[in-house]
């Protein structure tokens, strides 16, 4: 009985397959004749290997495959629910197109009918040439040229493209932080209702309602970001809001080639965090990361309060479900009831809430990007809005405002639909509720 402590799993699996493929008698005969030791080892190790494989499968493969199989083939009346979800998604998409048309019409009304003083220029989004032209221009991406700060005009789509990656990067980080904080805290406060944690969550959501992100960001900037800026040599009004400024690089021999000189865009991907690492500029990477994290924390602090305000009641409802009481009566420990059963039940509710509050998330992010002077597309929303505030602004900035609002509307509506459909696929009870509601 000498089992080697070092097990070559691949070898075992291949020999296991070999063994399994042969008939039993043959196998026995062969083993005795050729290599009895290896055969015995394989026979003894087979259950161990199978157990390891099962554990690995349970841990890594089945959650993912289970998620997708539930997504596309919900349990129960499979075909019916599948079809109902698709019908629902299609219906929502049609409504979304109508909503988008409505928003564009409002934009057209605002900028064409209300702002009568606006003069026509061919280079920008032609609001003044008629509703139909405006709509088709918006949907076909003919957003005209843009010239801000006396530089050579470039296509608006390209201009927005320079600023978009930063916003995406920041939104992903902020949402990740928010989810990592809000999920356990929301679940625990709903579970221990009326206790200390629940009370503090209620207090937090109440306080943060009147402590908006712009003020919190301002305080963060005073206490952390101001000293940080003076350390890195950046300035609040520089073009390189995100990046280490030109002055910062001057000390190290001039700005590098991977930062665009005019628009502050980075190459090759456009995402500053990735590009700095790609080009091996680790000091720049550190500065960018610090700033993005600071902004993400600022956004998350506001968004978590908003999210918990919406999600708390849903969590309380979910934790009052009958089957949890039945599970407790059967002796399932509270911890597994909370994290496995209730924890899974609230996931669709939370996804739905994220979709529902995504518009507010974008508003929070735009104020934070503005107060930190970031290089993001949502900074452009407030920048173009603010520039347009004075005497109707320039045509170029108004056109930029229209384009950014159009893009934001698409993102918000898409987030709504995706969140609703995913929540429904995960929890078919939602669908029947919606059917009952009749809308």
């Amino acid at each position, binding site marked *: 009985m000498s089992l080697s402590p070092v097990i070559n799993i691949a070898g075992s699996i291949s020999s296991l397959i070999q063994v399994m493929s042969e008939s039993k008698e043959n196998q026995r005969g062969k083993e005795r004749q050729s290599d009895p030791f290896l055969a015995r080892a394989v026979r003894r190790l087979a259950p161990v290997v199978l157990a390891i494989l099962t554990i690995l499968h349970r841990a890594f493969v089945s959650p993912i495959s289970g998620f997708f199989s539930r997504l596309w083939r919900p349990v129960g009346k499979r075909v019916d629910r599948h079809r109902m979800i698709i019908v629902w998604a299609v219906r929502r998409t049609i*409504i979304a197109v109508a*909503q988008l048309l*409505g*928003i564009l019409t*409002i*934009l057209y009304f*605002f*900028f064409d009918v*209300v*702002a009568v*003083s606006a003069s026509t220029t061919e280079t920008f989004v032609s609001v003044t040439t008629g509703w139909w032209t405006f709509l088709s221009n918006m949907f076909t991406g003919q957003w005209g040229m843009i010239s801000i700060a006396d530089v050579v005009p470039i296509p608006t789509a390209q201009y927005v493209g320079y600023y978009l990656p930063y916003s995406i990067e920041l939104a992903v980080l902020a949402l990740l932080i928010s989810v990592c904080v809000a999920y356990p805290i929301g679940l625990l406060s709903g579970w221990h*209702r*009326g206790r200390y944690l*629940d009370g503090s969550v*209620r207090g937090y959501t*109440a*306080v943060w*309602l*009147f*402590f*908006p*992100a*712009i*003020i919190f960001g*301002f305080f963060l900037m*005073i206490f952390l970001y*101001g000293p940080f800026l*003076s350390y890195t040599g950046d300035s*609040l009004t520089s073009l390189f809001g995100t990046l280490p400024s030109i002055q910062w690089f001057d000390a190290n021999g001039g700005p590098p080639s991977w930062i665009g000189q005019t628009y502050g865009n980075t190459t090759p991907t456009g995402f500053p965090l990735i590009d700095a690492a790609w080009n091996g500029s680790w000091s720049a990477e550190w500065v960018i990361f610090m700033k993005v994290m600071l902004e993400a924390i600022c956004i998350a602090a506001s968004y978590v309060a908003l999210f918990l305000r919406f999600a708390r009641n849903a969590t309380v409802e979910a934790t009052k479900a009958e089957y949890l009481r039945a599970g407790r009566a059967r002796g399932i420990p509270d911890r597994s009831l909370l994290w496995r059963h209730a924890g899974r039940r609230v996931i669709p509710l939370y996804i739905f809430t994220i979709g529902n509050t995504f*518009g*507010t998330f*974008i*508003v929070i992010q735009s*104020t934070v990007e*503005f*107060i930190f002077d970031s290089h993001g597309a949502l900074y452009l*929303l*407030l*920048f173009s*809005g*603010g*520039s*347009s*505030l*004075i*005497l*109707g*602004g320039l045509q170029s900035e*108004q056109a930029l*405002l229209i384009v950014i*609002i159009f893009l*934001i*509307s698409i993102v*918000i*509506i898409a987030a*709504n639909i995706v969140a609703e459909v995913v929540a429904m696929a995960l929890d078919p009870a939602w669908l029947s509720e919606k059917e009952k509601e009749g*809308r």
Partner: protein
Amino acid sequence: MMGKGRSHLVRRVREYLHHKELMAGTIILGIYVLIGLAAWAYYRGGLSYLTPDLGVYLGYHNPVPPTLTLYPFSLGSFTLGQTGGLGFSVAEGLVKGTPWDLMLFAGILVPTTLLGLVVGVIAGGSGGLVDDALMTVTDVVLSIPPFVVALLVFVVILPGIASNEIPLVFVASMVLINWAPYARLSRAKAKTIAAKPFVEAAAAAGANKGRILFRHVLPNSVSPVLSQVPITLSNLIILLTVIPYVGIVTSQQYLHILSFMPSTYFPEWTWILVNGMLGWHVSFSSNAWWGYVIPFLWIFVFGLSVLLFCDGLEDFLSPQSGSQTH
């Protein structure tokens, strides 16, 4: 009958007085209202204009810090506008702004709540085609982010109208933007109320549809709507802070058009807050903390008092109001 009604009223008043959340909100809100009334009675004609403090012009680099001694008591002063502008006292600005801000918030929140409530009750109470039509309109309004529409109002509408009409147009546009969530909430409640036996009894007794909706369904649908009021107030404060801040930073101009106000030296809480913030923004070294900390706390406490009042009232008006357990 009379005696029973009176004892019920006395019981309700006693419940009100013993409701901690509601009483805290009422007292703080009452203090704000008293300050507003006192400012209105004291300043009269000068209420709509910030008078220069100490009779001197202050730059950003020489704001006067607060003196917290008994006399002379001051919350500090700083410049409104860019360097060399009008210097004014923080305390005076906040006190003078109180009646205007209370009127502004009440003027937006009350009509918004009423409009949403009426639309929701009509939709939920009548059902059928009316419900579908009203809720479709509500859904369309809900799908548009209020902040973006408000930005458009500031960019396109407000610059084009006379300065004394700006506050009215601003209030009207805010009401039109914000009523939809109230309709959603009150519709859900009205639907459950309309299915209750006492509504059927009223219909059987011969009450017409309008009477049922507005005498029986509406008073019972008020409570869920109140939870939305602080959220709208919060959005309003965010809007009134962000727009002037963004406008001044991008345009480098101090114009009344950046807020809803009729003139640049009009006392308004968020305008004072933003000016305090920008004093820091212009140069890091002139850190006049009283320019933003004190106005922020002033607005923050007001917001919390409204939150306490609305949450308490919601609890007080709901049927099981005796218990304060959460």
